[in-house]
């Protein structure tokens, strides 16, 4: 196998910047992913501030050209999904997965570096549309024929830059997925059987399978759209014999599984955090693993629920599958709650954000039952209700999960603790701002406000709720400030974390903070999914986990 982990001696010769630019260490690449993702999070958040500023009051105040408004929300959605949520979860996977399975690095360190460096390049390409005559403006879904190169469509290079950027990100995802799969299947430490893997590793495994199966479909669709626009491909343009619905099918065949790509690792992260802070094992470990695999499998059979109003899909099938996917999600929710149940909870910042995930993702999930009922979806589709639903899943779920992970693993990554006070301030601001922004959008959508409009009539009855949503949006933005201060202050003067500040369960807490380039001097025995808990408390408490430990498959190295 590849043994490319840098020795300490080798890295000592290099300057800091050169080291970061050329590193193949999974931990450094993981941190690069996280930092890069937060840069794009800031940019996409500013775009959202533009959207909320314009919508705060009826009339056009800030964005006088509605073409620019269309660029704002198109780039907001695209960047949040493809350059923030997906990469930051990949970044945590990169940092944590090799540590949790007791490996020295990812299986293919150079490919790992390549998949990261494609991302800033793709982001720069997409944003450069703003200075070449206008960025992409057809929505993050880029429906054809609107996305075609023609008057009143997407003339100009912005859309082409968007396509090229997304293609690069797709390529990075595919490479990353292969890397994770090989790492997880081939590089686990002795004793780390599949059913002793931490849940985060399981969710990254399932996510990688989704990425590997779905992303090539998106990438080929993007290439076809590029050919349509530049070489007369006629794939998706009915005016020249193409099919507009075909784009939607291939786009959502990726982009619905992408929802699980964005949520499953966040679920994995809070599944690490809840047991640690309630001092109990995860309730129903195996049920949780099966539910994760179930969501991954069902996730491929529900894409057309984004297309219920097209008049071009078989509605009952996709309705049934969409309802069914609620079942494994519900199993997870109950397992999390019964992990807390009768535990001894410490309300530290990571747990607060994890609880935020539970209670907000719950709303996003219950929303899903409304839009799975096709006739109700006829009323809700493409209104602000959908905007509310997707943000309860992706912000209430994924982003709260991401911050739970940031507060949980920051001590491991840097050796310093983040401030609890600033962390709790951030949580309260974000929780209040989030609900003030997105809950009213349910009501706006029910009363008929379509998404993707720059303005609305002052007589439509939407003034107060839009103002509330905009105020909430700015509170969310404000909640980011204590976080930045917290990181800046804690990096220099934060409390020294030590190896295991949280009394963790998994192997990353068995090494130093931050870990050495080769990760471990020695590994504890792995006899359950909580090797560090066993080390700390002995095996008596964990005896019931796996009564028949079959001989562990030995990794090939």
């Amino acid at each position, binding site marked *: 196998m590849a043994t490319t982990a840098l020795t300490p001696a080798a890295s000592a010769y290099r300057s800091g910047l050169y080291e970061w630019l050329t590193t193949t260490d999974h931990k450094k690449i993981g941190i690069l992913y996280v930092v890069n993702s937060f840069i794009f999070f800031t940019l996409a958040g500013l775009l959202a501030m533009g959207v909320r500023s314009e919508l705060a009051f009826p009339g056009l105040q800030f964005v006088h050209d509605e073409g620019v408004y269309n660029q704002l929300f198109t780039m907001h959605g695209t960047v949040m999904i493809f350059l923030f949520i997906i990469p930051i979860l990949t970044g945590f996977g990169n940092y944590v997965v090799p540590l949790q399975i007791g490996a020295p690095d990812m299986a293919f360190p150079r490919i790992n570096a390549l998949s990261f460096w494609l991302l800033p390049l793709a982001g720069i390409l997409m944003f450069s549309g703003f200075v070449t005559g206008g960025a992409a403006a057809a929505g993050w879904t880029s429906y054809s024929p609107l996305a075609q190169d023609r008057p009143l469509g997407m003339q100009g290079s912005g859309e082409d830059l968007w396509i090229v950027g997304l293609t690069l990100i797709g390529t990075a995802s595919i490479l990353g997925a292969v890397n994770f799969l090989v790492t997880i299947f081939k590089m686990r430490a002795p004793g780390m059987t599949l059913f002793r893997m931490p849940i985060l590793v399981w969710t990254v495994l399932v996510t990688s399978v989704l990425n590997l199966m779905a992303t090539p479909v998106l990438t080929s669709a993007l290439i076809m759209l590029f050919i349509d626009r530049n070489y007369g491909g006629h794939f998706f343009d009915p005016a020249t014999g193409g099919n507009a619905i075909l784009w939607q099918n291939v786009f959502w065949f990726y982009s619905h599984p992408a929802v699980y790509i964005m949520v499953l690792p966040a679920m994995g992260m809070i599944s690490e955090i809840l047991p640690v802070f309630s001092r*109990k094992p995860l309730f129903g470990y195996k049920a949780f693993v099966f539910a994760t695999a179930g969501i991954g499998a069902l996730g491929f059979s529900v894409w057309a629920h984004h297309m219920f109003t097209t008049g071009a899909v078989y509605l009952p099938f996709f309705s049934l599958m969409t309802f069914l996917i609620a079942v494994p999600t519900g199993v997870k*929710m109950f397992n999390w*709650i019964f992990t807390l149940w009768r535990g*001894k*909870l410490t309300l530290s910042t990571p747990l607060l954000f994890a609880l935020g995930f539970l209670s907000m993702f719950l709303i996003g999930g*219950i929303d899903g039952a409304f839009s799975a009922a*096709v006739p109700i979806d006829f009323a809700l589709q493409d209104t602000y209700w959908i905007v509310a639903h997707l943000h309860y899943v992706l912000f209430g779920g994924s982003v709260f999960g991401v911050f739970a992970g940031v507060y949980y693993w920051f001590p491991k990554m840097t050796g310093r603790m983040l401030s609890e006070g600033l962390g709790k301030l951030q949580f309260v601001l974000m929780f209040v701002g989030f609900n003030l922004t997105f809950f009213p959008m349910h009501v706006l959508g029910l009363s008929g406000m379509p998404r993707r409009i720059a303005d609305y009539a002052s007589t439509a009855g939407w003034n107060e709720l839009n103002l509330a949503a905009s105020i909430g949006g700015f509170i969310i933005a404000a909640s980011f400030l204590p976080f930045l201060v917290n990181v800046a202050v804690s990096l220099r003067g934060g409390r020294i974390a030590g190896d295991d500040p949280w009394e963790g369960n998994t192997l990353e807490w068995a090494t130093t903070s931050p870990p050495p380039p080769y990760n471990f001097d020695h590994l504890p025995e792995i006899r359950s999914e909580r090797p560090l808990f066993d080390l700390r408390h002995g095996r008596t408490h964990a005896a019931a986990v796996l009564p028949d430990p079959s001989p562990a498959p030995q990794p090939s190295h």
Partner: protein
Amino acid sequence: MTSSTRTRPSNGAIVALLLLVLVVILLAVAVARGANLVKVAGDVVGSMFPPPAATAEAAEIRSLYDVVFVIAAAIFLLVEGLIIWSVVRYRRKPGDDVLPPQIHGNNVAEIAWTVIPTIIVAFLFYISWQTLNSVDAVSKTPDIYIRAVAGQFQWSFVYLADDGQTQEFTQFLPSGEAGGMVVPVGRKVQLSLESPDVIHAFYVPRFLFKRDVVPGQVNRFDFTLDPSEAGQTFRGQCAELCGIGHRTMTFDVHALTQADYDAWLKKQIEAAKATPSPGASAAPPAATLNLTAQNIKFSTATLDAPADKPFAIAFDNQDAGVTHDVAIQDSTGALIFNGTDVKGPGKATDNVQPLKAGTYTFICTFHPVQMTGQLTVK
């Protein structure tokens, strides 16, 4: 945990208590200022439901919504309650190093919370499927056929004869008193949706319904307005992002009684017949006006034509893939001439009947907002 084991309240408990006190004070102030809390609570709950159903189909969707809402609210309260209860009840006290019971799971519980939700979602799927079969049914014999054409960025409504094919007249103005889609209450209307350019969506909030308008395919759906809605106007809007003018694609639906509708339709058809079709004039044109369309704009904002003589308009559409035409409105806004639809790039020359001296407006009926100018006849 009992309260007697607590030596002092935690910081969290103090914050929670302060928040509670704040809420109570706010409520007290609101009541003192004359707010009716019961009404406010009712309004908040009411805002989580769709607007009143205007059609028979919308009423069915509303019934389904109510069932889903009750089940969803019950599940939300149960699960959110469990989360809050766990957080409030099971806290680690400072200095407590005894591990809680290490429970790894319970197969009976796992089966229960797999099977019960499966039954619930199977039930929800069944009732929504039943509703779908009803509201999505397309009749072979509707009472009225209308074709809605959604182009960037304008709706028009083509009234069809009972064969569902023959065009009787077209309503070009999408909204306002003189425009919009006019339909009788209590009759089954079949709407077919067509787009010449990109995807749009026909959406009327009080129909609790939308359907995409997809180029290259014809979507159909039926609706029957409730008889109590006669005289009402419903706001509609394009719901699928269709470009820079997406927001402006609004329209009105006017509900009339059957008698009023019949009278309205008769008048519209007669008016349409009175507008000569292009090329109807046999006399040679006295003048030819050149007009070009490019980038969704006319080449000029003013045209001059001779009075009381037939003239011709030579129209050149240079917008590839976009359809334009030239139409003339008199000072009342009535359409007195409607030229050939030209898909770009393309040309057409239409003869216009003699016009009296005066000022007229020429427009492209597909882009009346962006493409308009003044025609002076003297």
